């Protein structure tokens, strides 16, 4: 007899149940139960933000080389569990689940390489007209909320998470069933606890919470719904969150997605003896 998995949440490196005790049923096309996923509450989200904030400084300070290696490690572990994800995603009706998992692995490898390159690409030494050494370089924005693509699949989630995390931010992401299995990959890939926190739940309920939280610095919203966008941008105004709105699908990889969650810092120092 098969032993089905209990899908919980992923907060601060642990797998807690939702404090709310609520579930969302996921059923296949025949109406057969696949899983009861946790329907995360506002409180779960807020606890995730606390975990993400706690992890943010250490992750931002980790060397780019280390971040790149951890990203590559995630890809390795995911490759090792490819069959599991193909089966799980196929069960949820994902067409060509193999291609989806392969795309997710490729995205991780791609962004692993960006970890120690985007800074140089977007930095500058500025020729100011005074006797100063002046340079500008990107630094991570902080804690980023991610409303991942709504359809089941891994590539969409990874395409949204990877540019946020590789840039040294920590995040809380709202995603779908397989995100919780992906959390098992993250948990065994040397990603520090709290850097990625993954929730499942109701988008309409949680998008406003992501947008209004005062200790979230930025929001990546994957949505084609203009009402979502308007609501999120209105709520985000209170602490001037940076908001990037992307289509509800797999994001084409680009260093500019990394830059969306970076702040440029400029440093001046006099030159002289």
């Amino acid at each position: 007899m098969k032993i089905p998995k209990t899908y919980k949440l992923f907060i601060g490196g642990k797998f807690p149940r939702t404090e709310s005790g609520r579930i969302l049923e996921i059923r296949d096309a025949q109406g057969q139960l696949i899983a009861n996923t946790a329907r995360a509450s506002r409180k779960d989200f807020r606890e995730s933000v606390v975990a993400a904030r706690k992890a943010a400084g250490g992750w931002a300070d980790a060397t780019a080389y280390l971040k790149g290696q951890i990203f590559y490690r995630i890809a390795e572990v995911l490759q090792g569990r490819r069959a599991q994800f193909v089966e799980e995603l196929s069960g949820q009706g994902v067409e060509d689940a193999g291609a989806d998992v392969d795309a997710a692995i490729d995205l991780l490898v791609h962004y692993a390489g960006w970890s120690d390159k985007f800074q140089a690409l977007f930095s500058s030494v500025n020729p100011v007209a005074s006797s100063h050494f002046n340079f500008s370089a990107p630094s991570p924005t902080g804690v980023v909320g991610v409303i991942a693509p709504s359809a089941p699949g891994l590539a969409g989630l990874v395409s949204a998470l990877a540019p946020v995390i590789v840039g040294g931010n920590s995040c809380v992401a709202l995603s779908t069933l397989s995100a919780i299995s992906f959390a098992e990959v993250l948990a065994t890939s040397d990603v520090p606890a709290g850097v990625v926190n993954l929730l499942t739940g109701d988008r309409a309920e949680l998008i406003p919470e992501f947008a209004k939280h005062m200790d979230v610095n930025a929001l990546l919203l994957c949505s084609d719904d203009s009402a979502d966008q308007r609501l999120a941008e209105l709520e985000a105004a209170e602490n001037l969150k940076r908001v990037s709105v992307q289509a509800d699908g797999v994001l084409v990889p680009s260093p500019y997605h990394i830059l969306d969650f970076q702040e440029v810092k400029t440093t001046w120092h006099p030159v002289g003896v």
Partner: protein
Amino acid sequence: MSSHDFILGSYAPAPESTDHFSLKKSYDLFIGGKWIKAATQFETINPATDEVIATVGLAGKREVNLAVKAARKAYDSVWSKMPAAERGKYLFRIARLLQERAREFAVVESMDGGKPIRESRDIDIPLAAAHFFYHAGWADKLAYAFPGARPTPVGVVGQVIPWNFPLLMAAWKIAPALACGNTVVLKPAETTPLTALKLAELFEDAGLPAGVVNIVTGAGETGQTLVEHPDVDKVAFTGSTAVGKAIRRSLAGTGKRFTLELGGKAANIVFEDAAINEAVEGIVNGIFFNQGHVCCAGSRLFVQESVADKVIRKLQKRMETLIVGDPLDKNTDIGAINSPEQLARIKALVNAGEQEGACLWQPEGTLPCKGNWFKPTLFTGCAQSHRIVQEEIFGPVLAIQTFRTPQEAITKANNTPYGLSGGVWTDKGSKIFKMTTSLNAGVVWANTFNKFDPASPFGGYKESGMGREGGLQGLSAYCNLEL
């Protein structure tokens, strides 16, 4: 008014002359290359004398509409079609014309806004010209600025600027917008419209095609009309965080691009191993430059405990030599507070500082009777929770706190919703980099303060704004990128 009411008898008056140019009695709106009379006018007043300098047009919905239409027409028919190198030549020409008329612009800036002539002459006007000159060169090189992406203009840009650096802010906004191929509707601040209008005259002299830049003067309502205009593709705003948030809300869901340069509460951190005399000069420049009407002003001073008494003593001694008075006098260090409203805000916060238990110190001396003035002020005994530590005062008021360890300084410095700028004073290189990388601020000055350059990006973290202005990184504010 004698020029040294504050420090009597120290220096002979050295007023800048005002007879080498003439100001008009009234200025209209600059729309579509023409001067358009508005239905109503308002007065712009010299804050050092309370005298009316001129009247300017108050742009309403109709005028803003006309201006946006003119900008759209200029974008579609001329500016977006012009070879980029030609666009650049107009900007070079504007930079040159501004350099030629720098003296006149400096005097008008000091008359209209109250800032010392030494600052408008040596900083505001030369930097404004430098912004045009710098961005002129970008016009035909944008393809190199965005690796792997293709930049295109955004379209019509609506820009709203503050009263603390009137011409410089106009240049910060207009120069990159035009270089990147956009057309502009600019709204100067209500209390300082003159140099932007004179800049429009200079655009005429430069032969800039009609409608490429339109100047609509007015107050908050005019700015709001511009920001919310449906045919504006991008909004650029410099001003208070409260208004910035309101603008962000009004743009929610519209898909309009925007950049915001908002308030600040910069920490200026002095370590015991700093060159103390230089640090004291840096503290003075950090908070008293432009009467403290500076979003990146070093308004929170953190001094390491072991040198706190020494630094404060030297600072007070230095503050006793600051000359407060006639903005047009070349000896003046601190000019007039920009408006009665701003003076009232400063006074209210200073009162709150005293009521909450901080200890106020000001140098001796009397202030001029007419006009808006405030003495350079420092507070000791400040707590992190005091309003004078948390809120932007935008005046010559410094709140001093002490610290023991670098970590304590970092924690206190970052404990604010703002994140525009910061300062660090120490002779130890590794400590500088530890501090500058740990401060959550967009611009960090180490062993210097309040330096600006068109090649150097400027802008804030957190609630100090979004986006950068100036330098390579500032260009993306005025380009759409095709990835």
